[in-house]
């Protein structure tokens, strides 16, 4: 796994992540359901994880955390622990990739 081949390394605050173009997302009730077009793997994100999903545009994960903390007022270490865990799972499932360096 390396930057540029589309597969994320281990996720930390410097990692740039974006939603994989191979993934379809649909809001169903209070969840966002993701379906990977090639692997067929699917997952349901709860409301909070769905908000994080929408924010993944290739910016560093640290910026995403800052935005969430500023809106929610929650403690940054708590937000980081939760969000990094979700992002790790999503990247392992192939739902995220890293944009190639510009």
């Amino acid at each position: 796994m390396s930057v540029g081949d589309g597969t994320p390394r281990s996720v930390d605050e410097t990692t740039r992540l974006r939603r994989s173009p191979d993934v379809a997302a649909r809001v169903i009730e209070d969840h966002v359901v993701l379906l990977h077009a090639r692997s067929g793997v699917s997952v349901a994100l709860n409301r909070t994880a769905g908000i994080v999903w929408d924010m993944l545009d290739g910016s560093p994960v640290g910026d995403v955390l800052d935005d969430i903390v500023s809106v929610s007022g929650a403690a940054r270490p708590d937000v980081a622990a939760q969000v990094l865990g979700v992002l790790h799972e999503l990247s392992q499932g192939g739902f995220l990739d890293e944009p190639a360096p510009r």
Partner: protein
Amino acid sequence: MTTLGFLVLEHGFTVSSRSARLLGEVQLVLASFQVEGEPPGTRYELVVGPEGRVKTDFGLLIDGVWLSGSGDPAHCLDYMLWHVNKRALGQATREVVVHAGAVRSPEGGAVILPAISGSGKSTLVAGLVTAGYDYLSDEAARIDPRTGAVRSFAKALSLKQGSPQRLRVGPAGRGADADEWHVTAEELRPGSTADGAERVRAVIFPRYRAEGDTRTTQLTRVEACVEMTRHLLNRPTVGAAMALEAIDRATQGATCWRLDFGDLDEAVAAVNRLVEQSPS
């Protein structure tokens, strides 16, 4: 050599054979898909040896290429039907196809039963049809992505060895020793073949467990949608977005359940109860 033409969804094909018995079985299974003439598409040939081309008693050629041979004609026929299903369902472009049994409840509305092979869905569909439900499919729920309605895929049911329904119905001896045995919905209950589009009333994921207790568990619609994506048959063809849209629309207003069962009569009774709890 006799040749029959069929159109299964968007998959046109012909089946040729010198064996009236084999062609008769093909007609039985695919009766609702037979068309006049010979549509362009795949050419299946069920060969009865010896014809100089085969070393076994029976063989299957697809577009002139030898695919399968066996001493048992049922094996060649089953292989051909598997190929037809794979092509027709996997390459359907206008509908989203879920591997599922499907019936229409007596009060209206479809009950779909998504499951992998071996989960007992064909046997459960046969039991439900016998109990008064109309037959849509034992293989595929065809979902219109714009409306979420389900259409029939009414090939003959394929019942495996040990299916209780297999022991109850049909003319004795017709493929009685085959691994898979084909029976039409009309043989189960005359007038039971449904047509048209049906809104989904209940989604039930059946799971047969030999000797197991019958147990139902309610699922959220989100859980059911995620589970249904695992039974998609044409995701690579229609794409993930269309598949999700269809599943979302199909499940709107439906109740969703998991059904573990080890006894067919108990399972049918359980489905009746679940359908009664679902909006008509």
